[in-house]
């Protein structure tokens, strides 16, 4: 496997008095693929994403990104390498979709610099690639949840990073919008981007991902291709619910096993 991110022996807690969130976690993430990190709520998926980003520093263990350790990169170098779509983004001011998307150019500008013509062009192209150029002048907080998720993705396109982290990108979205987001992720991977998404929904993961990581209680329960990871035994164990994996003509689907439920 051609890996772009490597975690080794990661141990993390928010405060020495708080419970341990991640313990002795090691993981490789394949290059130019969509990796889905699956697991129940509160199992440390977002924390893991923030460690990949460099926002949180593990108390033990090392993170390698594109062949170098995290701490060898400057803030700005890292922000040209890894982009993030967070799970929640509250925007207190009425920025337009365009103004918000343009902020993706920050890694290429110093704090006193204004975006130039090239930056504006890239922002327009990104909005077009995400299919939301027509929303450019609308305030971000006044569009639908699905459109807002596309705006976040357009902002990350503008950032132009080879690695994209998405935290629960399809949570709270209807099926049509899930489809729009996940198809876009597949297209990005096809274009050479490495995409890592967290999700608590196995079916969303199956739809978009090439590589699967199952997390449970701050540790990796399984990692690998779909047939190794997405099994009834694995899923039933970590979600503590009887689960069946249905395979049909070209599709795999995870369903709750009603017959075995109490």
């Amino acid at each position, binding site marked *: 496997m051609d890996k772009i991110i490597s975690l080794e022996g990661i141990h993390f807690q928010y*405060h020495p008095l708080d419970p341990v969130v991640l313990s002795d976690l090691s993981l490789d993430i394949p290059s130019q693929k969509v990796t889905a990190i699956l697991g129940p709520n509160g199992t440390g998926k977002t924390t893991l994403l*923030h460690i990949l*980003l*460099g*926002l949180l520093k593990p108390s033990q263990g090392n993170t390698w990104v594109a062949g170098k350790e995290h701490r060898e990169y400057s*803030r*700005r170098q*890292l*922000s*040209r390498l*890894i*982009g*993030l779509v*967070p799970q*929640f*983004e*509250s*925007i*207190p*001011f*009425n*920025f*337009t979709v365009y*103004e918000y998307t343009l*902020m*993706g150019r*920050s*890694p290429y*500008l110093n*704090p*006193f*610099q*204004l*975006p130039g013509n090239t930056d504006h062009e890239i922002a327009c192209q990104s909005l077009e690639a995400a299919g939301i150029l027509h929303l450019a002048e609308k*305030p971000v*907080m006044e569009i639908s949840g699905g459109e807002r998720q596309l705006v976040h993705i357009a902002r990350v396109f503008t*950032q132009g990073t080879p690695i994209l*982290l998405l935290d629960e990108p399809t949570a709270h979205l209807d099926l049509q919008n899930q489809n729009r987001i996940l198809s876009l992720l597949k297209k990005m991977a096809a274009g050479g981007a490495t995409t890592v998404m967290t999700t608590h929904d196995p079916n969303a993961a199956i739809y978009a991902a090439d590589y699967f990581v199952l997390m449970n209680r701050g540790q990796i329960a399984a990692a690998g291709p779909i047939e190794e990871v997405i099994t009834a035994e694995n899923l039933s164990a970590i979600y503590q619910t009887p689960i069946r994996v249905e395979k049909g003509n070209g599709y795999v689907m995870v369903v709750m096993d009603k017959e075995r439920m109490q």
Partner: protein
Amino acid sequence: MFLASLLIGRYPEPFWMPLRVLRDDPLARQLVLKLRLPRLITALLLGMVLSAAGSALQMIFRNPLVEPGFLGVSQGAAFGAAVSILWLNRHPLVIELSATVFSLLALAGAYFLSTRIRYGGWVLRLILSGVAVSALFSAGVGVLKYIADPLTELPELTFWMLGGLYSVTWRDLAFVLPFALPGIGVAYLMRWRVNLLSLNDETAFSLGASLGRERLILLLFTVSATAALTAISGIIGWIGLIIPHIARRIFGASAEKSLPAAMLLGGLFSMIADDLARTLLPGEIPLGILTSAIGAILFIYLMISLGIKVRSHG
């Protein structure tokens, strides 16, 4: 507007000095050059600094209802001035220095306190600390007022607290400039970047912002400019709150345009307010009272007719 303001006043008669008088009357010339000009420049700077600081703080704190008085800066300055009037020296320069020192102390205190609080995000911690530090200093001011000599010290203290530019000289201005200009300059230069600082911490971080450092630089420059001006003007409320609002409403949310616009509008606003303070009555109306009155009326108007949007979730 600036030139017109030079000619507005109560000499030789209320409201307007004809150019002919300026040419022929040496007293009029003296008055315009030695009193009105420095005062006007100070009024302009005051409005610009308060609006720039207001815009920057609102972005940094992700809250459109924040203003420069927020971090204990105003109360710290008031306390410093009171200490100086009571115990040190009533020389204007000493009052200014003491007010500046105490407001920076208040900021440092609030900042230090915020690093010691263990719960809540960065913004909540700093706001809580600011409230606590403000309360401490305003209690201190209360004590000083109580023990002040009611015949000599109390009137001066009270007038200073109401705010006004009645005593500004070129020398005061010379002391203020080294703080005011860098404050305005840094806010202006960071006018696009400050948008980034209003996003979620994790998003701003992923976009390459060194959050702590950039916020601290912006805070330090805008607050020390505010403190220096507060030291000569007294507490002038509402400009830092209401002007950035109006600027955002006209020029959009992005600070790239709305921050410079707020600075211009703020300068204009405080110049006009000061013209009114000088001219309306034979005696001077304290500027702080005027800006509060106008600011509050504008605020009520904006709230009722246009709806100021405050989003508190997240």
